[in-house]
């Protein structure tokens, strides 16, 4: 078997390792980590009608990993009858954030402008974070669809971060560092982050120092959050496929070394 065929075999094995578990749909979550439980509790203890600001800070290419997290958190917010203010500090994430918020709002028959609002994108993210500390309506005179925000019922008793009980940044990069450096440091905002798996270690120091109140990451975090919510989402569905395909990568590494061992023995003979 020459190198090209071995490579195609490996590609096929990875394809099956992802497709079959998705089709068999076995639910596999494992232990819920403390960080995800802490993240869940912070939202759970909010009274109904408190304000939750959700910031969609990710690029289109990371949607596979952040969608389950975003859907779980929005589902939880709707069950707790929180009022959700959606914003986005990444151009590409704006449209995707709006679609997810609209989807969960339709499911729970939320009324736009009363129960939830979507403000959309701002290019200069540091300026936007700081400005919302003074007045959200001044920074966003019009929402994502162009309607005037000042007249919306949701903004009757919502001026700036002081009325926002919790901010959740759903990110695939370093945007939460700006939330901590500007929103938390200057306006003492309660901040939680939902991240792609590869960004998690970068933010553990912020969690241990108390700058952020909760952190959950990757498909595993989404699966854990869904099990706390006792609902079946992209997280739990994807977890089995992720574990199987990850094991295939382990087996491929071992196989590579077995082949190396025999090649060396043949050469040695």
């Amino acid at each position, binding site marked *: 078997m020459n190198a090209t065929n071995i490579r195609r075999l490996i590609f096929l094995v990875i394809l099956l390792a992802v497709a079959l578990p998705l*089709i068999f749909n076995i639910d596999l979550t494992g232990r819920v980590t403390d960080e995800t439980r802490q993240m869940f509790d912070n939202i759970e203890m909010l009274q109904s009608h408190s304000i939750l600001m959700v910031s969609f800070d990710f690029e289109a290419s990371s*949607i596979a*990993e952040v969608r389950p997290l975003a859907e779980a958190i929005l589902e939880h917010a709707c069950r707790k009858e929180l009022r959700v203010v959606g914003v986005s500090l990444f151009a590409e994430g704006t449209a995707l954030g709006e679609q997810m918020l609209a989807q969960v709002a339709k499911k729970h028959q939320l009324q736009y402008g009363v129960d939830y609002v979507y403000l959309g994108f701002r290019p200069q993210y540091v300026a936007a974070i700081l400005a919302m500390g003074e007045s959200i309506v001044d920074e966003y005179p019009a929402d994502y669809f162009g309607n005037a925000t000042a007249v919306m019922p949701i903004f009757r008793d919502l001026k700036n971060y002081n009325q926002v009980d919790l901010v959740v940044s759903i990110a695939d990069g370093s945007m939460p560092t700006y939330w901590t450096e500007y929103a938390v440091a200057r306006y003492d905002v309660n901040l939680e982050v939902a991240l792609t*798996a590869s960004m998690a270690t970068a933010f553990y120091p912020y969690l241990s120092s108390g700058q952020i109140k909760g952190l959950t990451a990757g498909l595993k975090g989404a699966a854990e959050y869904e099990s706390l919510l006792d609902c079946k989402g992209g997280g739990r569905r994807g977890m089995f*496929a992720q574990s199987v395909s990850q094991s295939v990568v382990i087996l491929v590494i071992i196989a590579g070394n077995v082949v190396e061992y025999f090649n060396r023995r043949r050469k040695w003979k």
Partner: protein
Amino acid sequence: MEMSTLVAVVCTLAIFSFLYRDNPFYRMAEHILIGLSVGFTLVMLYNSVLVPKLLRPLFLEVDLWGIIPLLLGLTMLARMKRSLAKFSKPALALMIGSGAGLSIPAMFEARILRQLAASVEPFAMVGRGEELSFIFICSMIISLIGVISAMVYFFYTRPDTKLIGSISRTGVYFLMIFFGATFGYTVTSRLTLLIGRMEFLLGDFLSIL
């Protein structure tokens, strides 16, 4: 199943076909992607940079300061003609010079001082007499050895004594731990990307899920 899902499925399969080998189906998808991404960026830059920061101030509010970036920008147009290309060098120098100047303090703080301060911090916790586990103490010492040996490995003009040689070899082992751990760690999110595409193909398209 709507038209847009069908289009997205065809595009997805076209890109996946590259895994077997390069083929006209992939090449067409690639050239369409190049065109769309160039068009998308041109329109976005026009709407979010040129209009608010150049055209509106210059032509609507007649703020003559806008002339300077416009001229510098237009010298960039000179690059399209080889004989005029050298007139774009001042604008290039402005961009590269400002980038270089900005990076010196920012890089020094983020990449050097903040990293080294973080390696000393655990020792300060010991100094403050905080209650620390045995594992914490060992990890602290191992981490310090790691930083020191990795830094020694990167010396260019290091003398070839036995001691320096063994320290830098230790550094190599720490570097290998970093590369292996980072690879293993990032594999998870790379696999998740494929899970997302398969959920789209199996779910939205074939609706097997």
